[in-house]
């Protein structure tokens, strides 16, 4: 029995090997940053995770619009997969941010605007997954989940706008500065490589999860048919 076909297995392995190499480079090869010291190495994991979480939200938005427009069930299945992967990477972003915050800010958690909004995003992803599982009919799933998907995505850019407002009102920018001149080309290029690899892994995971969802539904259908056959026979 083949669990993953050759193509999926090879691409998955390539991505994971690339991730390990990028992490090795981030941890042992790249030079230490002047201001923060070695702790800045966490950003090579933290920033790509958050980027992947936002990519998932973007895919969720596209799939939700497509779902409502074409009434296609496939798009909400992809939506569920991207919400799950989005939740995983949002959690990862929060966890690594928190671990970075302890030696930097001196606290595991602070009600900083960006932390709070990211936490809200995680809750919204949870809500989407729960809603998907609690609606049974396929057509209702398309309608309800697509509407929620659009609402979640509509929230993200506006929440971020309010973040800038909040920060300018209450506190100076305290999250690490990634701005141009303060970052050496070496650090920036490695960060971009890490982001690209993590996005690729995110997409690969979404595809795999989508396949699991469709297979799971095939299984449900098949077992239902068999039960009906047995009852009929």
């Amino acid at each position: 029995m083949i669990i993953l076909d050759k193509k999926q297995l090879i691409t998955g392995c390539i991505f994971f090997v690339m991730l390990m190499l990028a992490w090795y480079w981030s941890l042992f090869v790249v030079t230490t940053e002047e201001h923060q010291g070695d702790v800045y190495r966490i950003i090579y994991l933290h920033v790509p995770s958050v980027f992947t979480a936002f990519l998932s939200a973007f895919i969720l938005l596209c799939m939700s619009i497509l779902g409502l427009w074409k009434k296609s069930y496939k798009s909400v299945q992809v939506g569920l997969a991207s919400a799950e992967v989005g939740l995983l990477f949002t959690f990862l972003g929060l966890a690594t941010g928190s671990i970075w915050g302890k030696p930097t800010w001196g606290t595991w958690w602070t009600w900083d605007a960006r932390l709070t909004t990211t936490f809200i995003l995680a809750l919204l992803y949870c809500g989407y997954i729960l809603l998907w599982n609690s609606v049974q009919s396929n057509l209702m799933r398309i309608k309800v989940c697509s509407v929620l998907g659009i609402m979640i995505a509509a929230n993200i850019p506006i929440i971020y706008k309010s973040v800038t407002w909040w920060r300018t009102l209450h506190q100076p920018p305290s999250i690490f500065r990634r701005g141009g001149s303060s970052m050496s080309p070496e650090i920036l290029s490695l960060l971009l490589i890490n982001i690209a690899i993590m996005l690729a892994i995110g997409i690969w995971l979404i595809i795999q999860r989508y396949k699991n969802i469709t297979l799971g539904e095939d299984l449900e259908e098949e077992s239902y048919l068999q039960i009906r056959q047995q009852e009929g026979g």
Partner: protein
Amino acid sequence: MNTIFKNQYYLILKHGIKMELADKERLISPILFATTMLILFAFGIGETSEDLIIKIFLAQTFLTLLFSLQITFARIFDPDEKDKVFQLLQCYPINHAAWFLGKYTLVILVGSLVLVPTMLLAGLLNHNPKAPLLTPEIFLIAFLALAGLASIGVLLSAMTLKASGREVLFPLIYFPLSTPVLLAAIQSSQVLLSGNNSDILWQWVGLLVCFDVIYVTLGILLFGELAGSE
């Protein structure tokens, strides 16, 4: 606005008001809940210093409103579902925007009946020696917040109508979605009550109005998809 749209809107609204009036428990229970919450908040916080009074007043008022309005919103389609009005309207060639706006106005009306007593009570329970806590502007901000929350409420109520475990599901989605509205409402009220920079106040009020517009537009656009025949 054409006549058919207007008629449909008024009919939906009239029917909703009749249903709400027929079952007074639906209206009284959120107010009682709000009163209990305010008392619990007062007990929990105890004596406070003067400089914290504004913050505490706003936090307890808006959180109480959020929780008690959630009870109102979550049940807004219940009478329709029970009497099969929802299913009948799904089959009827009704304008979905009129249906949404009818329900939305009803939610605003019912929500106001929860909002006003809650705010008055919160104002009575808290005393700020420097300036009054309950001003017309605070009420205006609270109504702007209600306008945004009501739209999320109607949409989510329609969304979770067929979902299993909707008692848990509704607040789980409603609270994160309402955070931007709540944040803008609390921040603008705080700037207003502490008499700070008016530019900042307008920024926050602008954000609140922006969210209201977005949520109501989304409501009008997406409600049709939820309420369309299956």
